[in-house]
């Protein structure tokens, strides 16, 4: 057990600089209590990966990260035999009998543990982060099922490795591919959306403490208005913080048409979004 209560989660995550909403804190608490993996979805830039890092810091645990990409496979995710070393071992011991050599080269020494196996072995606390799970192929999901439901990995030559201490598992997904129902069932589901105004103000204050408080409030309100528009890519928390930093660097005291117009590119990444937002915010009046 890492946490006593939901409030304890909020307070300790805040201590590492991660301001969690009520939903995030509750779900993290449950994931710890029920010992289930946490599947985090949400738009880019709302702090999905950061959450795992923050939990690791709070728990004083080692963060083991598996970055998924198209074509990631067993030997990248689970374990691999160190072939080169095995060959060396064989040629070093020429006068050995076959039995001695065989039992020897499939030992721990020649095993290269990859993130999933690393997270399961050993007694120290760990946080396993499986990032961008949706990028991996469907076959890898099958691999994850065994690991995530029983926290064990089967290596044919060594036998089954079962976790003596369950890692805290966080999976993130951008929903570019629908994850399989089987995987979802094994996880607690958490959607991190855009934070409400108050929380976002607090985040900006934390990340850009030098920005004037009134300006911070204005920044958050404008971003909120942009999110309500039908845009191709609405600004995320990361963009809000970037914008706040930009305004600080420019030395802007208040928001006005010119400042917003010049810096809108920090928030919006498509030209037609910029056009539409300018029209809605009456920026062309100047």
């Amino acid at each position, binding site marked *: 057990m890492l946490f006593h209560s*939901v409030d304890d989660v909020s307070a300790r995550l805040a201590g590492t600089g991660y301001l969690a909403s009520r939903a995030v804190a509750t779900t993290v608490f449950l994931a710890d*209590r029920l010992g289930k993996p946490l599947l985090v979805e949400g738009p880019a830039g709302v702090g999905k990966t950061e959450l795992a890092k923050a939990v690791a810091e709070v728990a004083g645990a080692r963060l083991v990260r598996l970055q998924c990409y198209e074509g990631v496979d067993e030997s990248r995710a689970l374990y691999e035999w160190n072939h080169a070393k095995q060959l060396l071992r064989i040629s070093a011991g020429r006068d050995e009998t076959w039995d001695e050599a065989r039992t020897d080269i499939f030992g721990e020494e020649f095993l290269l543990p990859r993130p999933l196996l690393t997270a399961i072995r050993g007694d120290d606390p760990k946080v396993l982060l499986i990032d961008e799970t949706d990028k991996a192929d469907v076959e890898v999901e099958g691999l994850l099922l065994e690991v995530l439901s029983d926290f064990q990995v089967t290596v044919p030559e060594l036998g089954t490795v079962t976790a003596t201490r369950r890692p805290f598992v966080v999976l993130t997904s951008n929903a570019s591919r*629908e994850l399989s129902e089987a995987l*979802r069932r094994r996880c607690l589901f958490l959607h991190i959306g855009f934070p409400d105004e108050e929380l976002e103000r607090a985040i900006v204050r934390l990340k850009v403490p030098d920005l004037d408080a009134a300006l911070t409030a204005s920044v958050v309100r*404008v971003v909120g208005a942009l999110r309500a528009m039908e845009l191709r890519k609405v600004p995320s928390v990361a963009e809000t913080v970037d914008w706040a930093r930009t305004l600080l660097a420019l030395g802007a005291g208040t928001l006005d048409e010119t400042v917003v117009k010049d810096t809108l590119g920090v928030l919006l990444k498509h030209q037609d979004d910029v056009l539409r937002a300018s029209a809605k915010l009456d920026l062309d009046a100047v």
Partner: protein
Amino acid sequence: MTAPGVAERLTSLVGALRAHGMRIGTGETVDAAHAVDALGLADREALREGLAATLLHSQVQRPVFDPVFDLYFPASVGGPRTAPADRDELRDRLAAALADDDTALLGRLAAEAVDGFGAYGSPSGADGWSSYQTLDRLRPQTLFARVRDDVRARGGGAGFDGRLVGDEVRRRIAHFRALVATEARRRVAERRDRDEIARRAVAPTPDRVDFLYAGKAQLAELRRTVQPLARKLATRLAARRRRAARGSIDLRRTLRASLSTGGVPVRPVLRRRRPVRPELVLLCDVSGSVSGFSDFTMLLVQALHDQFSKVRVFAFVNRVDEVTGLLVRGAADPEGLGARIDAEAALTSHHGSSDYGAALGEFALRYGGAVGPRTTVFVLGDARTNHGDPNLPALREITGRARRVHWLNPEPRDLWGTGDSVAPDYAAIAEMRECRNARQLGALVSRLLPV
């Protein structure tokens, strides 16, 4: 250990969610009970999040989950124990609460409003509570100007963000309306069968809304799903293409490569497929009833346009016109799409009802060149000809010229062939599929789109 009453509450909540098409297994229900155990019942919002985390599998289920949760784990029981409110006085307090953006107070006001103005039926024992009636009497939307001026007067609207006040107030009013709806549902559920209310009074997830019966708000909701859906479909298409590209062994290059390993073909070389991006033609009925479906599909295909070498979109009512240009990204605002098509394309002759025969004939005649052996044609419409000639030869001609023709029909299959529908006749020539909601459309598009 959870109290027995809670366990029962929980299982009926799960039952109501299942009735809305969510697949929740027993394992999840047990997890949810563990969650209740760990969180306790004191903090309702924590409980809500905890149950959502254990029972839900995706965010689209959330808009269904929240109202159902409110029914089974209500914030309070019975009406607010206050004197019946006076309308003007309540409006004053509401205006103040909206100006302050005081969410807790808004919730209490919603309860009072439903209690005071929502009851209908005989005066002796009221039969129910209506959010419609409450909002009709209270008219929160008419407070807009007052609240906005109030916020501005207090200096909340100084400087640049002053221009945002209007939209913010509008959002707060919409939020209050939602609170009233929730409260009215809760009061009704106290009176009648809760399971029944949960099934009927809670709107389905947007991807399961029937295109033909979708209201304006639901269509707007649907449009917001176009981009994510398109991204998902593009990923699926790319995966299908990759798989299709894996194929036969290139013998010449395999033998050439084997020379470096002493003539043993260690690594087989596969034949590369030349990427041919297919062409797509969309032929859409945009007349009244099916326009919601057509608009959505057009936007979806447009969002997918980089997957194809060429996309051409034609719209018809009883005449055909090309509308590809109207869909170009950036120029298009999705809301006004239907209106723009009406205004800028010549789709009707002397009457305004749809005529499939004439439209197909004209398409084959004027735009026949758009359809070639690499083209996949999608026809969207309900195949209701208003008793006109279905003009089957025209469709046969298009089918003969195209690589594939798919017909997507937004009507339920049971209704095909009833009344003036000639769906079975068309279905005999081109493959016709039922496509009633965004979920079905997504599944069809990912399967039918050419790779």
